[in-house]
């Protein structure tokens, strides 16, 4: 069967075959509930413990700092709402380019008397340092700044930002779901700089959907989001998704093993891609910035992003027109708007996110298909005018 | 819960299970623990004319460690005088069976059972 070339790895990734192989026994003969005391249960408990060690080791965390959740959104919700529930209402600072699963929970806190302070970014999507300094003067109690942006791939210097906030009593969280497998992540040194919590997700790094983790400094107190049974040190109740957790463990381990080499390979593909994009007159957002090695976010003047990705899909290339979220959202990307990109131009945004399966020839094919498609669309635009 | 090999051995093959008639000559009976606490041990000793425990029997309602502790002490008290039996310490029982900390109370109960059986024997024999 014809399969399009998949260039949307920031939305989700295919499962690594080694991850699948590790998971299958837990979907077959090893089906116990990890809370059961008999052999079936003990096997499952041990598998979860091992996965916890793998995830911890992949990001230089301690196994007891790993809280498994059903996904990155849940982990982000857990930190923001869970930490807020243990504090008196105050200021919560979140970057303007966060994923909705950070922005929305922060917004929810307003009903309990919290104030949301959005942290501005500059034209390249980086936290604006003077605005950040001003925000810190408000003595925020909670801060959440992502490690790498899902749309633009722009990296934040989270360690330095956390360092600046340290000593002011803020609890600092970073959403690192886009980082795993693309960047070396060292929670120990982030933690030393003042990062208290970090979100990881399996399915962004060749692991399964349905498993993620909040890495949490144990000094931080949280209220659980989901009560009942006391799993995950009481911070997240519910029967553990053993197969997915096992898969997450293996995926995280592989990600850490491969990241140095894979980042270089992706970076070379990214450069090849972007050379082709620029040659066709596209603008690549935040091109000069430190970005993920796999993400290119671009637009052509007068070409609608939705239309372009639709045409590209028919040409056999799976790309995204913005963040992969549920609503068919007609609004231009909030990330680009925060960067000061004009809404008309932002509507043209297309995201290519590369991954393990991609190679040079696919990049070249994509560039060719894009040239033809853009040519046709520009012709139509010219006719319409 | 993982049990030591010795606990499992005593649990699978308990020594000296059974009862003597309480009113039999030379028999002392100790019953310690309570059902609500999860353990009840009954230890009986049969003492000969020269004050030596020549036989012992037990019955225990309780976990594997409690069964093993009482089984073990029936072996240990045999051949000892009643006063020698009193010198058996719970720490020795715990060590012999490699009991985990949460199960130390089983060894304490076994020591108490010896004391209770000896006390009963002494009371009945006018000492």
């Amino acid at each position: 069967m014809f399969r399009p070339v998949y260039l949307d790895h920031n939305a989700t990734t295919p499962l690594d075959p080694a991850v699948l192989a590790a998971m299958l026994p837990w979907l077959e003969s090893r089906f116990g509930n990890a809370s059961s005391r008999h052999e079936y249960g003990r096997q499952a408990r041990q598998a979860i413990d091992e996965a916890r060690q793998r995830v911890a080791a992949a990001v230089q965390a301690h196994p007891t700092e790993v809280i498994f959740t059903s996904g990155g959104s849940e982990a982000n919700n857990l930190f923001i709402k869970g930490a807020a529930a243990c504090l008196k209402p105050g200021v919560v600072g979140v970057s303007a380019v966060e994923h909705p699963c950070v922005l929305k929970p922060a917004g929810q806190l307003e009903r309990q008397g919290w104030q949301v302070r959005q942290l501005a970014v500059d034209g390249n999507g980086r936290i604006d340092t003077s605005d950040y300094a001003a925000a810190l003067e408000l003595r925020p109690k909670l801060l959440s700044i992502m490690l790498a942006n899902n749309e633009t791939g722009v990296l934040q210097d989270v360690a330095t930002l956390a360092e600046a906030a340290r000593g002011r009593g803020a609890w600092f969280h970073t959403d690192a779901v886009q980082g795993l497998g693309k960047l070396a992540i060292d929670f120990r040194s982030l933690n030393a700089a003042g990062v208290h919590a970090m979100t990881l997700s399996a399915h962004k790094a060749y692991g399964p959907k349905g498993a993620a983790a909040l890495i949490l400094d144990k000094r931080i107190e949280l209220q659980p989001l989901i009560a009942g049974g006391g799993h995950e040190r009481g911070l997240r109740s519910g029967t553990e998704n053993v197969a997915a957790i096992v898969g997450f463990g293996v995926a995280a381990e592989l990600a850490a093993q491969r990241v140095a080499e894979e980042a270089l390979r992706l970076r070379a593909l990214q450069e090849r891609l972007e050379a082709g994009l620029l040659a066709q007159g596209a603008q690549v957002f935040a091109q000069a910035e430190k970005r993920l090695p796999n993400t290119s976010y671009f637009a052509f003047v007068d070409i609608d992003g939705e239309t372009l990705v639709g045409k590209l899909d028919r040409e056999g290339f799976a790309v995204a027109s913005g963040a992969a979220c549920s609503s068919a959202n007609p609004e231009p990307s909030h990330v680009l708007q925060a960067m000061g990109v004009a809404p008309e131009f932002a509507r043209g945004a297309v995201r290519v996110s590369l991954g393990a399966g991609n190679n040079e020839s696919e990049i070249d094919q994509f560039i060719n298909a894009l040239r033809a498609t853009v040519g046709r669309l520009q012709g139509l635009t010219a006719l319409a005018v | 819960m993982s049990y030591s090999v010795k606990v499992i051995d005593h649990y699978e093959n308990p020594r000296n299970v059974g009862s003597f008639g309480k009113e039999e000559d030379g028999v002392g009976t100790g019953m310690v623990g309570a059902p609500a606490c999860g353990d009840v041990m009954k230890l009986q000793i049969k003492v000969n004319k020269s004050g030596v425990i020549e036989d012992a029997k037990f019955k225990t309602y309780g976990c594997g460690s409690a069964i093993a502790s009482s089984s073990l002490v029936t072996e240990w008290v045999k051949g000892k005088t009643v006063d020698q039996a009193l010198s058996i310490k719970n720490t020795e029982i715990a060590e012999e069976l490699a009991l985990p900390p949460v199960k130390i109370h089983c060894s304490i109960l076994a020591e108490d059972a010896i004391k209770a059986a000896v006390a009963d024997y002494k009371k009945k024999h006018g000492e």
Partner: protein
Amino acid sequence: MKLPIYLDYSATTPVDPRVAEKMIPYLVEKFGNPASRSHSFGWEADAAVEQAREQVAALVNADPKEIIWTSGATESNNLAIKGAAHFYAGTKGKHIITVKTEHKAVLDTVREMERQGFEATYLDVQENGLLDLEAFKAAIRPDTVLASVMFVNNEVGVIQPIAELGEICREKGIVFHVDAAQATGKVDIDLQQLKVDLMSFSAHKTYGPKGIGALYVRRKPRIRLEAQMHGGGHERGFRSGTLATHQIVGMGEAFRLAKEEMAEENKRIGALRDKLLKGLQDIEATYVNGDLTHRVAHNLNISFAYVEGESMIMAIKDLAVSSGSACTSASLEPSYVLRALGRDDELAHSSIRFSIGRFTTEEEIDYAIKLLHAKVGKLRELSPLWEMVQEGVDLSTVQWAAH
């Protein structure tokens, strides 16, 4: 015969091989994010999610639009109780009714609501484990906003009178939530008939995978909820987060199979359970916990007097069974469910939950019966309490030397 024999289907079930077969393509080539709107990987995943939604809805005779995916019944229970209580607190009030024998996912959630300023009534059950309708009615107050009662109890398997409770709640304008994690595939559920507003489901108790569940949210009359997880607005805003396609596909297939096969399967399982019951009732001083009529075919919870629980579990290690509910069985506290049935703490006994399922064989039941006879006999031989009872001593009159 593979040992240990799995008789703990109420803790979790194996994934049916037919279910696993349907899941695997969505772990391999069909890996798209169902929220990806711009390419066929996403559409393919989304179509699978919607088909599964129809399959889940079909088992309980609901509209697919009334089904919201969650990570499991625990999350569904949290979402239902917190979501509805918060939404309706302003108009109805802040009183919640539930039952002492509910799952921890409900009890802990209601406790949290109490900390947030709600009041709660935890109803007792009768000795047979069933809720008394008159007691339920009597607990209703003008400010009662929500009632949460489980369909089938996880420990003793009794079926609560959900239809009757629904009528009462509807008449009084109380939001009615039902935890049906243990009910799917075991009892008929018709949400066109039952006046239930919110119902929690789990896949892994019905031969589907762990990590996926659903919440039924009634549309007519429409029930509103405050979301508990915010983000990309998935599940019409009720529950944000990337949908785990393979797990959802698995739940859909598991529920489709349940609908197709439950009538036959329950007959077969019921016969095995009755055989087990008969075989164990031959042992002296045993008694069944919970009503035997209003009960799912899969469950047998039985107490063996004068046998201590931990040594019992050790003795029957060839059987994978539960001595409490799966979530609390790490501790040896007496089960709160059995306590709520009036089983005296002081009474020396051990209670075992046998839960039978799709892959249980007659041979396994025969083995279990034989093993129990031998081991209970052995432990009673060892038990001073049993000896006293045989001698005619009334244990309740004994002065125990506490230690």
